[in-house]
């Protein structure tokens, strides 16, 4: 029997109960939110389960939501079950003061650089990562440049009225 979003959702709910929240299916991709302390367990389960077999990590990235108090940083995983052709998106939120997420490098070697990239740009601390250094930016950099508090253009400029350019 082919795997469907419905089955994946049921299996996950069976295993983790109501710890997984925010179930959605935007544009056909099953999406849910997991607590940061459970991320490795959930991914391990998805990887090892004989029925689910989500063994390909397509993408791992971060998002910054400065307005959400206590859950400013988000880490997004895109998993893929190549046998059944099902994709799954998992998100986890952490506070910006203590952005600790467990590393999944032991499960997926591919996660190594993707986690380094997420650390480099968002400052997410991947606990258990073998070599958490900056990757694309210079080592001396002190900021995490993809965070929203760093605007792309110099905010002190007065010669350019953003309202006129629809940027407001």
């Amino acid at each position, binding site marked *: 029997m082919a795997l469907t979003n419905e089955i994946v959702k049921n299996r996950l709910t069976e295993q983790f109960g109501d710890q997984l929240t925010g179930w959605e299916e*935007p544009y056909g991709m099953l999406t849910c939110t997991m607590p940061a302390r459970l991320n490795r367990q959930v991914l391990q389960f998805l990887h090892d389960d004989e029925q689910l077999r989500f063994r390909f990590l397509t993408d791992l990235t971060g998002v910054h939501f400065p307005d959400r108090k206590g859950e400013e940083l988000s880490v997004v995983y895109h998993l893929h079950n190549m046998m059944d052709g099902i994709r799954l998106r998992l998100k986890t939120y952490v506070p910006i003061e203590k952005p600790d997420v467990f590393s999944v490098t032991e499960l997926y070697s591919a996660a190594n650089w993707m986690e380094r990239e997420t650390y480099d740009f968002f400052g997410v601390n991947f606990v258990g990562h073998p070599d958490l250094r900056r990757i694309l930016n210079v080592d001396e950099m002190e900021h995490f440049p993809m965070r929203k508090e760093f605007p792309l253009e110099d905010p002190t400029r007065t010669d350019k009225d953003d309202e006129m350019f629809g940027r407001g």
Partner: protein
Amino acid sequence: MSEYNQNIQLSDESLAKQTTTLNLGPTHPATHGIFENILEIDGEKVMSAKQTVGYIHRAFEKIAERRPYYQVTPLTDRLNYCSAPINNMGWHMTIEKLLGLKLPKRVDYMRVLIMELSRISDHLICNSVVAVDTGALTGFTYVFQWRELIYEIYEEICGSRLTTNIGRVGGFERNFSDVAWQKIDKFIEGFPKVMKEFEDLLTRNRIFMDRCIGAGPISAERALNYGFTGPNLRAAGVDYDVRVASPYSSYEDFDFKIPTGTTGDVYDRYLVRNMEIWESLSIVKQAVEKIRQIEKEDPAQKEVFYAPESDKYHLPPKQDVYTKMEALIYHFKIVMGEIEVPQGEVYHSVEGGNGEVGYYLISDGGRCAYRLHFRRPCFIYYQAFPEIIKDGLLSDAIIALSSLNVIAGELDA
């Protein structure tokens, strides 16, 4: 001896060391791009490699958060610049997915045609570079005038060659000209002969085979774990192709094979790319036939080059801007980035030259993306490089790098 003691002051541990440290890169003629690898070699055997990436990081993801959707297309050009049209169209398809636009079949087939041509040019570069690194410069000279013809086709369609910025949301900026069609026909007719010649030169060439077979192998299991996609994964024996697994742009209407290898070494990667060139050529032929069939059944279709319902997002033709009110309004709104997009979160992927090129877009309904992440296949599979070249010869490391087809622009974003 005294001069040696005075002038060359190596530390004791360095003198005691039995291996040699070799800086391969950041700029090295054999690496075809900015790649820094610090190799530890024992004689000619590679013991370990330390990679440094990011030399040409241009902060595309940050820039994309400030630019309207149209201005992101030129950024995607500069990811994998060997097959820029695939990246452009992948990005346009992501927006179309967000907007829920459905394209007419003719436009889909035109896109497929261009994407497959760029796949051919991408693979041609990779395979000729593998040939160059094994010592055969001739391969380059055979196929490059046909890659040039592909660039001329782009030029006929969008006006530029390498970084194409081709297409628009909803289709193309203008219809293919007669010259473009003539050039496509010329390509279909003339290219197979040259491709055959290129294969005759290399595929069963004893020297080439001896150099490539067994160099830089990776198993299917490791390749999957490392997030390989595209020809490099298929060379390891996994028949995963985004065009088949999750078809986009009407790929389901086409009949083609997914070539796979077994050992994932340089030779298999070369063979898989060569076979894909033939498959792509067959898709190009099918696309031309399908477009002509559509035009024969309904001559009005000849003028369809974008989805009619996408007129709010598709820059109107210039003569309409000067003569029609709506066209002028849309033109202004699009240029100023005032197009309306829904809120949402979308992941779309296409089969690029090197694998799955993914776009993860979060839209908050504003004029720019709230967050745009590019899944860049090179970035993900290049981390396997030390494992691939370990215990091989130094010269194998060079051809392993070129056969992986790591593009610095895509690697560093």
